[in-house]
């Protein structure tokens, strides 16, 4: 009986992990790809190994772009993106779900912090701010950095790869 319970516990754990990965794969397969401009990066973390901390231009939302009431920390934010050259840029932000226009996309994040009292802008996190560098791929070379994002219809983003001077990395 105990052996069966143990096997059951292991199977449940494995199923949860496999199910989670499968749901992520499912979302990724149905998502459309866009590119975002990366404002700055931190190339290496001494404690956690080789990953790149990214700071996207769309993370800074000016106060005049925000529709509706002022959000609180952690509140979800729907940011409308529109093509601007080769990348997408933020054009509107709202506390409620919005319908994008033609050629536009919506990405969902949550409020991480607020700017200075004078600017009243806010900083948004999307859960794509970290890129784990594959083993033996070396550090990300210097150059103009852009990130390819897979964006589901609901606005959930996945960071898929980076582009350095328009060349894919890794």
């Amino acid at each position, binding site marked *: 009986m*105990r*052996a069966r*319970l*143990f096997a*059951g*516990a*292991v199977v*449940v*754990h494995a199923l*949860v*992990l496999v199910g*989670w*990965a499968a749901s*992520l794969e499912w979302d*990724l397969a149905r998502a459309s790809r866009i590119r975002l401009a990366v404002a700055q990066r931190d190339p290496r973390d001494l404690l956690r190994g080789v990953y790149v901390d990214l700071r996207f231009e769309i993370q800074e939302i000016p106060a005049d772009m925000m529709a509706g009431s002022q959000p*609180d*920390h*952690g509140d979800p934010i729907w940011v409308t993106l529109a093509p601007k050259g080769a990348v997408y840029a933020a054009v509107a932000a709202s506390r409620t779900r919005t319908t994008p226009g033609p050629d536009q996309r919506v990405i969902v994040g*949550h*409020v*991480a912090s607020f700017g200075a009292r004078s600017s009243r802008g806010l900083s948004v*996190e999307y*859960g*794509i*701010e*970290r*890129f*784990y560098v594959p083993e033996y791929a070396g550090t990300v070379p210097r150059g103009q950095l852009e990130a390819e994002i897979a964006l589901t219809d609901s606005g959930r983003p*996945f*960071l*898929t790869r980076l582009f350095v001077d328009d060349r894919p990395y890794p």
Partner: protein
Amino acid sequence: MKARARGYEKLGAGLFVLGGGILLVGIALIGQLYNLSGRQSDAILLWWILLLPAGYTLPSIALVVLGWLGASAWYVMLVFDRTAWLGRDVQSNVPLGLVAIAAAGVLAWALGVLHGDGPYRRVRQFFEQIGLLATGIALVPLGLFGNQAWWVVAPTLRWPTALLGVLALATAALAVAPSRLPPDRLVVRAGPSAALFLVVLYLVAIVVALLTHATAVTFRVFDWADWALLFVVALALILYGARWDRTSWINWGVVWIGADAVVCYFELFGSMLQTSALFFATGVFVLLLGWALERLRRRITARAAMLQRSR
């Protein structure tokens, strides 16, 4: 499971802990594969939610303790993350963070008592230690900061519903806890819960005072109330610990009283610098109190151990 069945209890427990750790590594690896950089507390939540049912089903004390350690880490991460449901309640005002830690401490103590003296005795001991440590860690600074201006400098703007939810949960757990205490008269068994319920009431009062922007005098009263509360609850812990042979209660009760005495000393030090004689007297008092308390702790612990051996 096989190692445990053959009598290698510790090896079995170690392997369970290793397996639980590998589960966390698996969760982290999936996050890394898909470059997920959301809240790390979410990963810890998934981990302990998966571990605990497995720990209780097998049953494995090691897995249960590991799971609850994960839950404790998750709670602390929530307190410090201002974008999380609990963090944004408490980050607006530092004392609310201390209230959150104390509320979790009371909840942990009650959850520990609920594990009883049966097969989960070690889980109970773990919870009681964690709970009393957290409650003491929060109550001592709350007593120190009563006369500081920053209590009201950072005003609380919204009702901390998540924090009040944790306090309600702690109250519910305290209400059920006496049913799992050693056989005794109902009034006696309700004693420890009643003492810790005073802590909950005090914490709720602090939240209300912060929300209503109470006067500085009110916070000064809270300061004194904190001293009295620490002493009363610590005394209750020592007495009930001696009654039911729970040495950890006695030890934490003594630690609380000692910490309370030191807090009182520093409070006097800050406000009555000119009265050096009082300093000296207070210092001597603290030293004597510490000596007396240590003697009391040793005596009660030895008596509890002797009682245990004689059974």
